[in-house]
Each structure stands twice: as C-alpha cells, then as structure tokens.
C-alpha cells in the first residue's frame, strides 16, 4: 500500500494515498470534479481543462486529472474564481456548438448538456463564427458529425489505445482542428472496423450509429411482409439500463413482449443461432485438429474483428473459422428453413436483428453472406435504437407483461446465452467439442479460467490425454497482441476466441449510453451484464448446444449433419484481404 499523506480539501483535512492524481484522490473523498477529456481506461490528455482546481501556492489553476497529489497540498474545488474559469471553458465549447439539442440523438443523454447545466451556463456569450463541417454518412454503421465534436479526443484514444485500429487523429490546427481519418477519407473507405467504441465514449453526438429506425417503423406497417426479428444475448443483458433499471438484470421476456407490441410476427433468439454456430464450429475445430485445416483456429462471430482481420492480418485468413456469425446463421435459417416451414416466399420475409453491435450493420451488408441472392438480415438496429423505438411508440417497457420466444428458432441452450460475453464462445465450444470428441459429458462445464474481464485469458483442457491450449482476447487491441504472439509461436495455441469489443458483445458499440452516474466502458457494468448472461446459463436445463432439441430437429429435417454440403452452403463463408491495409505501429501504444 502506498504511503499516506495529509491534504486539505476546501479547508477540511484528509488522509489519502500518495501516488495518485488529484482527481483520483478527490473522487474517493466524494468530490466529483467535472471532467471531459479524461477517461480512466485511456491515456491522460489533460487538454480540456474542465477539471481544474485551485492549489495553494500555484500561480495557475491545475488540471486535476493530470496533476499528482502531494503531501500538505491545499486544494480548493469550488471558489467563485474557479467556478467562473470552469464555466468560461465550457461556455467556449457551447458557443462553438450547434444549438440542436431538441433535434439531436444525444438529447437527454449528452455529457455536454450535463456539463453546461452543472456549470450553470444560462446564456451564450461569445456568439462568434462557428465551425462548419459536412456530416460523414458514408458508412452503413458509423456516422460522424464533426460540428458536434468538442475535441476531447476520447474517440481518438479509444480507437488507437483500446481498439488498435488507429483510424482517427486530430488534424489541422487552431480553430480548424478536427478529428478525422487519414486524408479525410469517408469512414466507409477507411480502416474503421465499425466497432462503434468511438460512439460509446463520445460525450456528444459527434459519433452515432447509422439509424434505421424510421425505415423499420415504416416496414412494420407493410401488410405484405412477414416480420421476423431476432435479438442477441447481450441485448437482454443491457436494455434495462436504458429504462432506468440497474445494470445486470436480464430483460429477455420483456424485450420479446416489446418487439411483439412493435408489430413483429415472430420473435426468435440469436442464442439459437449461437447454438448452431457451436455445432458447426466445434466440428470444424475437431476436423482441423485431425489435420484438415490450419491451427490455431480463430473464432469468426465478431463482425468488427472480421473487418479488422481482413485489413490488418490478411495473412491469417486461413486460421479463421469459416463459420458465419450466430446472427447470419439464424438469418440464413429464417430465409430458408423457416420460410419453407411456414410456406412463404422468402422475399416476403423481413428479417430484422437487434444487436448490441454497430459492426453487425456492416456484416449484414457483406455480399458474401447473401442467401440465394437475398440478405439473411435486412435491417440491423442496435440496443439503443430498439430502446428508442420502444419509447417512441409509447410502449410501457417498465410494466410490460413478459412473453415467450416463438418456435422453433427461439429455443436455446445456456451455451448460446454466454456467447455475449468474452470467453463465452470458447466455453460453449469446449462443452460441445469435448463431448463429441470423447463421447463423454464434460463434468466441469463452467470454465473459470476464461471468464472475467482480463484482456487476455489463457486456459487448457484435456481431450483424451491431448492437451488443448486456448486463449481468449477481447478488444481489438488485445486481439493484435494475441496475433503477434501467434505469429512468433504458431504452435502455442489450438483455439483462439476473439471478440472485437471490450468485454465482448456486452460492451458492444450499440449498447445503452452510460448514464449520468456512470462512465462508458465501465468494467463494473460490463461485469454485471456478463453476470446476467451467466445467470441465464445457470438457470437453463439444457446448457450444451448439442443437446438443444430444436437444433437436433433442424439437422434432422433440413441440414443433415454438421459440416454437410448444405451446412457449408448456408452456414459458412469466406474472407478476403481488404484495402486500405491497416497498420499496426511498430511502437505499439496499446493499453
């Protein structure tokens, strides 16, 4: 433990630990200094100066997020001069900002609004020239509106330090400073992985997902369409937060009910798709283990990871599982198996997916994933968009009467549920692969080595005396680290799980924004969401994908066996190197 020192805050004496910043110490003492550019998971930029405090003996106010606390320091947090200085700083941001709140996607959930309110800004003072930029709406997933940017730099840092994509940087200088891509090229043509983490950390509406809610509201009223929807495990683990519920409560049945009220005819479970993915992926792994294909095998269900891999590690394409993601597998089954079952022309089916992820919007548009010329998923909306639709349609989510999934694509195992959290795909694959390989049930099905929020987790299991080494990484920056290891030691692992977002899908770029009392990427919230999924798993009587009766029936009636010709046609895909080529810097500044 660090040495204790004595400090004075607003003339009150406290003992605090040495070796931390003023802000860290004050947070623990219950003084919440306003802040903007600071984020605990990112490097300290110290640029916005919203977090200034007064320190006795210092000529200028100091940025508390960057300045170390020291013995006998006398700190003031709320003097009139300080309040005025802080207010001026925020006022400058507000004056250079469109006054669009009532028509803005972040209305009611915007840090700039909250800051402005907390600083007591009551009017605009310097109404001068305001910066003007075009919106970048090129991407099907991530929209950029630089006019709303307050240059806090959090997106730049999350994209490089956590995601290792390095797509964004500050460009130009002075009044013209802007956050942009290399050569100002549109997001759609950039190395952007579509992960949406910049949206998660942005305090304003300068980054947003491409919104499909209007189109969906219209299609939901089209009497000529059969409206089918699926939603991801992580949606149920987080959507409650958008309605004021504490993090970590599954709202599965409430979400089903709300989707029905919105006008969907069938509500299916992406967890069924996850079970199907496990059937194919576990068998694919065992084939590779026999020598048919390259090892280590790397999972392929994370859409941002797929684009990242094609741009940054195209030489590893052969290591990637050919399995489509659960969303795309289920979409393919909806447009074939299910269409046949209800005797409907698949063109008449509207296939919608609610995802925790912005990259799924990009995935749904990948031409490789067409099924008999049709999109497997026609529209992808995020958890946030669904929460907004529910509110906008006047549906009382808080008191809603729970409902059940439709059959047959709504039945899932516990293994499908944990797909949403880092380590879950691996855990579920092991449960199934073990039993197929050894013919015996795996006794210890909760594999704690690969649970939790550590960035890279290693584990191993014995398959008939053969030691299988696995590794799990979440966040694209951690993915890079694992891939660099594999490049050096190709034999080290047999099976690799990668999820593009911190925490896995539960931390996806489409999840509810952090509220007033939390921060984006908060590990405690991620852990609670994960716990909600582990809870679903524990409560299920069927916890292994291969024991799901609906999956068995699907193979019996339609697909034949895992990896059959039909399964290959409908459930597997391929990848190809993409331009622009991504560059992982030699001196990696990943965190």
């Amino acid at each position, binding site marked *: 433990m660090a040495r204790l020192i004595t400090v004075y805050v607003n003339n009150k004496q406290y003992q605090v630990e040495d070796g931390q910043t003023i802000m860290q110490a004050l947070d623990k003492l219950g003084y919440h200094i306003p802040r903007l550019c600071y984020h605990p998971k990112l490097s300290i930029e110290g640029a916005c100066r919203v977090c200034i405090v007064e320190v006795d003996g210092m000529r200028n106010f100091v940025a508390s997020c960057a300045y170390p606390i020291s013995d006998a320091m006398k700190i003031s947090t709320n003097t009139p001069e300080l309040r005025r200085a802080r207010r001026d700083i925020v006022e400058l941001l507000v004056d250079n900002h469109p006054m669009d709140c009532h028509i803005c996607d972040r209305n009611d959930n915007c840090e700039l609004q909250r800051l402005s309110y907390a600083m007591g800004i009551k009017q605009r003072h310097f109404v001068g020239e305001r910066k003007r930029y075009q919106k970048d709406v090129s991407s099907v997933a991530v929209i950029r509106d630089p006019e709303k940017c307050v240059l806090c730099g959090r997106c730049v840092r999350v994209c*490089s330090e956590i995601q290792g994509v*390095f*797509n*964004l*940087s*500050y*460009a*130009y*200088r002075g009044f013209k400073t802007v956050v*942009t*891509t*290399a*050569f*100002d090229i549109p997001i759609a043509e950039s*190395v952007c992985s579509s992960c949406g983490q910049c949206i998660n950390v942005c305090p304003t509406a300068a980054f947003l997902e491409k919104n499909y809610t209007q189109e969906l509201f219209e299609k939901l009223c089209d009497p000529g369409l059969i409206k089918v929807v699926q939603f991801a495990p992580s949606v149920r683990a987080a959507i409650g937060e958008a309605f004021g519920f504490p993090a970590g409560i599954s709202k599965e049945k409430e979400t089903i009910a709300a989707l029905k009220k919105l006008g969907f005819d069938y509500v299916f479970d992406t967890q069924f798709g996850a079970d199907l993915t496990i059937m194919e992926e576990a068998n694919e792994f065992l084939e590779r283990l026999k020598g048919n294909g390259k090892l280590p095998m790397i999972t392929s269900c994370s859409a941002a990871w797929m684009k990242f891999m094609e741009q940054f590690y195209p030489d590893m394409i052969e290591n990637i599982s050919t399995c489509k993601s659960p969303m795309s597998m289920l979409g393919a089954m909806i447009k074939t198996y299910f269409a046949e079952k209800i005797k409907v022309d698949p063109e008449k089916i509207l296939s919608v997916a609610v995802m925790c992820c912005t990259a799924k919007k990009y995935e749904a548009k990948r031409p490789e994933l067409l099924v008999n010329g049709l999109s497997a998923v026609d529209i992808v909306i995020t958890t946030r968009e669904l929460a907004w639709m529910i509110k906008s349609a006047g549906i009382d989510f808080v008191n809603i009467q729970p409902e059940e999934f439709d059959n047959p694509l709504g039945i899932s195992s516990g293994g499908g549920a944990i797909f949403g959290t880092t380590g879950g795909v691996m855990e579920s694959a092991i449960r199934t692969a073990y039993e197929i390989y050894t013919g015996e049930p795996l006794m210890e099905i909760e594999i704690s080595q690969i649970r939790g929020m550590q960035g890279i987790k290693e584990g191993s299991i014995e398959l008939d005396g053969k030691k299988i080494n696995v590794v799990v990484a979440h966040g694209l920056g951690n993915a890079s680290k694992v891939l660099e290891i594999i490049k050096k030691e190709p034999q080290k692992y047999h099976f690799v799980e990668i999820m593009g977002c911190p925490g896995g899908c539960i931390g996806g770029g489409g999840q509810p924004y952090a509220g007033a009392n939390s921060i984006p990427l908060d590990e405690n919230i991620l852990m609670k969401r994960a716990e909600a999924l582990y809870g679903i798993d524990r409560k299920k009587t069927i916890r292994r994908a291969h024991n799901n009766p609906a999956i068995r029936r699907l193979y019996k009636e339609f697909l034949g066996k895992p990896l059959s010709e039909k399964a290959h046609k409908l459930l597997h895909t391929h990848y190809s190197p993409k331009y*622009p*080529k991504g*560059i*992982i*810097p*030699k*001196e990696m500044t990943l965190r």
Partner: protein
Amino acid sequence: MQIKDIVQEKKQQNIQILKEYLESFKNRSRAESNLLTILHKVQELFGYLDKEAIEEVATIIQVPLSHIWGVATFYHYFKLKKPGKHIISVCLGTACYIKGADEIVAKLKEELKTDLGGVSEDGLFSFEEARCLGACSLAPVVMIDDKIYGNLTPQMIPQIIKEYKRKHKE
C-alpha cells in the same frame, strides 16, 4: 494518353526512390521522430504529399496513416493536394492591398471554389498568395504561372479563368 503514361512512369520511379530512401529508417526505433524529415522528402519528390507515397511511408516505417495525416496537416509547409496545372498567385502586398486585393481574393475563392492555399475542384488551379510581385504600378495584380494580370477588378476574374479552362478543353 501518352503523357499520362509518362507521368505514371515518373511516379513509379519516384516511389522506387522513396522506398530506397526509407530503407534506412526501417529498423530505427522512434520512427515517428523521423516523420518530418520523411515528409519533406516526399514533398521534394512528388511536389506534394501524394497518397500512394504516404501509404508506402506508413507501411515501411510502421506508423498509422491517421497519425501521419495529423502531423502533415499541422504544418503549413506541406502541400496536401496535388498542385494545380496552373498556379494563381494573388498579390497581397501593400500596394495591391490598398487597391482592393481582398475583393480579388473573394472573387477568386468563389470562382475556384477553394480557399487560399487550396486547389480548385477540377484540379486545374492552385490558389496561392504572394507578397509584392514587383508590379505595384499595375495594382491590384494576379500572376498566373508567369503571366501578370494588372489593374484588375473582380468583374474581370471570371473571364480570365474561363480562358484557361477553355485552353484546357482543346
């Protein structure tokens, strides 16, 4: 067509020269601290920061493109766009200024649809400023390539620009 081929060939030669030049930076640590030197070299070879050349730089010294872009845009002396076929220099010297150079600038901005320091949308003109072109008696003055246009009024600008555009269509 032929000219295009020659230009292309010249460019590829320059890329080759650049690659050889970058060889010595390959294994140096702190590649980023050499970035300015390298960008100057690119500008010297290509006349501006050519995209293909910058991609080569990024790949060889392993620095992300976005980072290079951030550095390149921060300094005024890097040209970010391929210079136009014609260089329009508008004189902002004292004599020209007094005689209304700012109105000439405004009109040129409108005609070329770019700011000072930029390149017109069609890639035909670079739009630059100059200090006293030594023709004060003709103020306000604009120089296009090496031809001086004097005693200008904003109304005369469109005709002059049109003339260059016409020549190019032929």
